[in-house]
């Protein structure tokens, strides 16, 4: 019998899968506050805890702000810390997100991507976490429950190596509540993959080190240079974690995933649950003789710039599908891609389409239509509403 993996998958929602990933990571402290559609993560964690399977200290404060305020110094003591949130909760944490990376904590958080108010909405849209792109958190976008479970475990390894907090983001309902067969790795596998967390610099009475005291300009500047140097190691750490995890479980991951890009003359670039829809659209287009492919951006922060340029060099046309809208510029992934591809020889014509903003459904057929409509057009500077 294979001791490393539970060969039969179990049916789990994306949120339940996250909770099982957390369980296997053996966390020490979990401060968490409920918010739709993240709540099933909290509920599953509390269930695992009350069954005695999870030993973590659970802290249920009055707000996401306090949850993150507790996460940061808990992590700095050398505890393994997890939390989860969504939308308004993530936005309420904003101040602390900067703090968490500035203090070089190693928290792993799941954000369930949901529309930010106003007006109120509970729909898949990635603006909540994309708007945190400058806060110094690693960001990975997940397409499926399995990827969310695997991602939580991989991100603990990355965050605790780089001493940078990490966020795994999955879309409301499409991933958070969709139930799929998920393979739950064995504890043995996870223990082999994820070493205990023991940072050299930590809050510890035997060390006497303090964190966050007022710093002068030079020292403040140096903290960001150090963070920048650590961020630069993250794409390789994510690649290494994805490779090693693949060796242990058969499921390999990388910062980017290329789907049917061989010989493609049009490539759709997107993130999160949209990737599942695009896969179907690509298959249909290939069947119809259209040389279409997909580039999935799994690691969004730090943006794997070199890998993105390499993947898209020589591709005639790339279409970005953004399930978010940044007022004044448009789709955020489109903006990022434009800056990455700038000054590159053989860069693709790049179209930015805002598709599915606010959770509007985007079908595989619609994606096929969009490719037919834009693949031979000259691109516009700004982004276009297409749904």
């Amino acid at each position: 019998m294979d001791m490393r993996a539970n060969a039969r998958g179990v049916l789990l929602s994306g949120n339940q899968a996250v909770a099982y990933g957390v369980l296997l990571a053996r966390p020490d402290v979990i401060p968490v506050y409920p918010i739709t559609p993240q709540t099933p993560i909290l509920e599953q964690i509390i269930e695992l805890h009350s069954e005695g399977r999870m030993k973590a200290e659970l802290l249920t404060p009055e707000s996401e702000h306090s949850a993150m305020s507790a996460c940061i110094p808990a992590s700095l003591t050398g505890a393994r810390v997890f939390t989860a949130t969504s939308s308004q909760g993530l936005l309420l944490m904003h101040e602390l997100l900067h703090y968490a990376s500035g203090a070089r904590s190693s928290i792993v958080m799941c954000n369930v991507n949901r529309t930010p108010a106003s007006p109120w909405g509970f729909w898949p849209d990635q603006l909540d976490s994309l708007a945190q792109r400058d806060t110094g958190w690693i960001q990975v976008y997940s397409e499926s429950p399995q990827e969310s479970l695997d991602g939580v475990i991989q991100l603990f390894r990355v965050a605790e190596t780089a001493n940078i907090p990490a966020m795994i983001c999955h879309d409301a309902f499409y991933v958070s509540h969709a139930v799929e067969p998920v393979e739950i790795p064995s504890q043995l596998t996870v223990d082999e993959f994820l070493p205990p967390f023991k940072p050299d610099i930590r809050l510890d009475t035997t060390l006497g080190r303090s964190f966050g005291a007022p710093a002068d300009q030079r020292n403040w500047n140096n903290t960001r240079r150090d963070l920048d140097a650590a961020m630069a190691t993250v794409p390789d750490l994510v690649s290494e974690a994805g490779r090693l995890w693949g060796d242990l479980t058969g499921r390999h991951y990388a910062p980017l995933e290329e789907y049917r890009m061989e010989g493609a003359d049009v490539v759709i670039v997107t993130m999160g649950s949209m990737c599942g829809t695009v896969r179907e659209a690509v298959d249909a287009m290939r069947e119809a003789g259209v040389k279409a492919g997909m580039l999935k951006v799994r690691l969004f922060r730090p943006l794997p710039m070199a890998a993105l340029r390499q993947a898209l060099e020589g591709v005639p046309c790339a279409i970005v599908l953004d399930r978010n809208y940044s007022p004044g510029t448009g789709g955020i992934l489109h903006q990022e891609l434009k800056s990455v591809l700038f000054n590159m020889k053989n860069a693709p014509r790049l179209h930015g389409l805002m598709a599915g903003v606010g959770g509007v459904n985007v079908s595989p057929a619609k994606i096929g239509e969009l490719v037919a409509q834009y693949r031979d057009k000259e691109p516009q500077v700004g982004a276009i509403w297409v749904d």
Partner: protein
Amino acid sequence: MELISYQDEGQFVSGHVACGGCAEALAMRVILNTVGSDAIGVVSPSCSAVICGGYPMSAVKIPMFHTTLESAAASASGVKRALVAQNKPDTTVLCFAGDGGTYDIGLQALSSAAERNEDILYICFDNEGYMNTGGQKSSSTPLDAVTGSTPAGKTTRKKNLIEILAAHRIPYIATASPSHINDMRAKIEKAKAIRGTKVIIVLIPCLPGWGVADNAAVRTARKAVEAGVFPLLEIEDGVNYRLSVSEKGDSIESYLKEQKRYRHLDADHIARLQAETDFEWRRLQQRVADSPARNP
């Protein structure tokens, strides 16, 4: 004058950056020495955060985590839980916050930590306003006091945080003053031995903020206690009240006269403040008398 001999434990050292004559440095010294070395501190932006010293120096021997203004109690909860998870449940987690970070922006997190009865020792250095930002009013600023944002005197009362905390039924609440350091030390020792949420509010007359002479901080604090404006008390389990100094003087005038923030008051105003003080003192006496511990 009675001299107090004080055995320093070296937990708070010279080089701190308190204003010359500030009683907060004295209070920090007593508190840190009493808490000892098996402790981790959490401090929110306030005079105490500045007094601890700028990177890479620290006037405090224990590790300090500097958190955001509204987060002291939440961050302290996180530290404590992490220590428990790492099998270090006896390490004291000590919070330093100002009145802005406690009565105002930090009240939500403090209330939540108190409701969960987190095992933290929370010290509020109460200088009755945002003194580290140049002296604006907070909800701890008393009636009639002049601050940068109440130039004609504050028109509303000081928030009664002690009773708000008592309503949470936490195991221990106390007030302390740098004028009564043996009392302060005894309260810290008592709090340290209790598991659960402990809050001690320490009155800190602010030299520039209150307009107090450089050599008068301790004297002003003493007068606040003696006049009954800042009674020294303990509340156990939210219901058992005890006064450390059970008598009060007849007049608040000598206390007011130490401070420029009350200089605009005429006799009528002072009489009104006196009536407020007398009323609150009588209410407090009643709470002491009604305490279940006295009425078994």
